């Protein structure tokens, strides 16, 4: 039984890690007033970059190319959203479609119709001494591949940067009131562009995690909606890095529970189990919304700056 409990926590952390990277990146963009629904395309671009990079230069290079792939997709979005001030939802939708299509085409071009199989090197777990001896939670939290530890560290680092530095203040000012920010001498477009690009890098790492720390290969469409879930996580986390982390863990736990319930052979339609994480996220979103109104940057999604 304790084996199942530990397995549940392990699955929670594994499922939450890529969502956390993508969610933190989206938090940055949304704090700058930009909602990037192209995140799904960014995550899949990161996944493809990871396979292409790791096939040539190993795991570390794979993560580098994953980040670059995510950034490249984000750059397309940033040009429309931050420079040309297009409708963010339309531009983001285009980027998602572009990412899903382009990666499939490039994948077949580079690896042929039979794909990369399971030949991609993966990042092995690196248990942290002592910490992974903590009963039950230890192996789950501290028996992970290094990329998970990077995600843990990123949460407080981003929180500190956002709320305790001038740069973070400028970012949030742009998202709350871009006109006032501009009057205060903050280069609004440049800040938004940078925030979108940072989000792209983290979204790319999210896709890289799927490939290099989990699956060991690429499958067309393997992002499977994680970009959209990450956008929900940002709202659930009230546009705050720590909140996003909590939301990612909630979703990860719900998914892990779903895996476990199915494997334990409970006699219920499997669609109920599959729906569970989404139902829980909706419920949490409804609750979080009623508990404290507001939280969204005031200028979120606004294309026009007067």
């Amino acid at each position: 039984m304790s084996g199942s409990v530990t397995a549940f926590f392990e699955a929670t952390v594994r499922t939450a890690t890529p969502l956390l990277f993508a969610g933190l990146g989206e938090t940055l963009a949304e704090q700058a007033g930009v909602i990037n629904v192209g995140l799904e395309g960014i995550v899949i671009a990161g996944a493809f970059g990871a396979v292409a990079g790791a096939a040539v230069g190993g795991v570390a290079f794979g993560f580098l190319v994953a980040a670059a792939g995510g950034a490249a997709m984000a750059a397309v979005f940033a040009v429309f959203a931050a420079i040309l001030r297009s409708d963010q939802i339309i531009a983001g939708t285009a980027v998602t479609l572009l990412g899903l299509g382009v990666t499939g085409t490039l994948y077949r071009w580079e690896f042929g119709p039979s794909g990369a199989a399971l030949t991609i090197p993966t990042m092995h777990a690196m248990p942290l001494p002592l910490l992974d001896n903590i009963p039950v939670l230890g192996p789950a939290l501290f028996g992970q591949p290094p990329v998970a530890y990077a995600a843990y560290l990123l949460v407080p680092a981003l929180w500190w940067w956002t709320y305790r530095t001038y740069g973070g203040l400028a970012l949030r000012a742009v998202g709350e009131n871009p006109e006032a920010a501009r009057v205060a001498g903050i280069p609004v477009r440049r800040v938004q562009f940078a925030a979108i690009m940072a989000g792209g890098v983290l979204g790319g790492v999210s896709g890289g995690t799927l490939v290099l720390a989990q699956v060991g290969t690429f499958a067309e469409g393997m992002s499977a909606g994680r970009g959209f879930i990450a956008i929900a996580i940002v709202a659930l986390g009230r546009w705050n890095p720590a909140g996003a982390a909590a939301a990612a863990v909630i979703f990860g736990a719900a998914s892990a529970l779903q895996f476990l319930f199915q494997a334990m052979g409970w006699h219920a339609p499997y669609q109920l189990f599959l729906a569970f994480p989404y139902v829980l996220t909706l419920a949490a979103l409804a609750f979080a919304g009623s508990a404290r109104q507001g939280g969204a940057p005031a200028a979120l999604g606004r294309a026009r700056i007067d």
Partner: protein
Amino acid sequence: MRVSALLHITLCLSLSACGQLQDTHRGRSASDRAAASGHEGFKVALLTPGPISDQAWNAAAYRGLLRIRDSLGAQISNVETKTPAEFDENFRQYGAQGYNLVIANGFEYQDAVQRVAPDYPQTMYLTTSGDRTGQNWAGIDFRFEEGAYLAGVIAASVSKNGVIGTIGGTELPPVKRGFAGFAAGAHSVNPRIRVLSSYVGNWDDASAAKEQALAQITQGADVIFQNADAAGLGVFQAAKDSKGVWVIGSNSDQNGVAPAVTLASVVIDLPHALFMIGQQVRDGRFTPAVITLGAEQQVVRLVINPALGPEIPRPARAAIDSIHALQMAGKFVVPVDTAMNAAASAPATGHGSSSSGRSRGLRD
């Protein structure tokens, strides 16, 4: 204005990149093709519910399409549909363009075929894993459960823990029937064996499929039969990452995907089946029907991974050989229970609405 024009270009680019009508005869000109083929203008299209790089169900169908091109000189076209809404649209496109044969790779296409086919009487529509037929539309009903039964015999013979598992994409009737055949085969060896069952909910989330497999492994499963297409790659990876866990593959010969952990694959010779039907359609000899293909027609079979043959106990191999011989002679009926068969023949609705919107189909 300028902005919206740019946006439109990006949208168009991305939509076309999404794969409408990819890979049409690789750049050969129309006259070349006509010259190369004895049958000028024989045109065949394939719709797949997932990527042809899945090394499984859709890869096999794509090989069949290439064989039709190479051996029958057909002009071919292939499109991956992402959502059920695209089914009808693509069927109509191909019908309007005068395609002779449109192959829809999976059970989930059957309702759309039934709707569209009457409007294009010159085109033959074929659903793999279909179980209905009409004037100009037909279905191939693969007896996947015959191979799956043998896989179950192997799984139960190899399992040390007395727990084995199945992982599918979505619960399409043909998939479910295959798993029922697998369970029946396993129970024939060990009536008390536990057979776990999980579904990923789509056919491409390899990470979630890996988690499903790890969850089953935690419950003690040491042989997992996967039928999840591209997502199934995650099941192989889970076995690679665990100790003493074997996988059995589906639809294509997947023994090479992870040779160290893959005991066997239940193979549907889809290329052969599609080629045979393509030939009949080209020659005008094809009569629409529900075509049942299984071990007897040498279309469904179990392929054991030669490298892992010694892992399979001798009596199990003997049992497989004798059951297979009976199947080839048409004298072995897989005892998939009657309730399951009733479910399998009902026109299931709502599948295909997996989270990614692309269900797949079939196999079996």
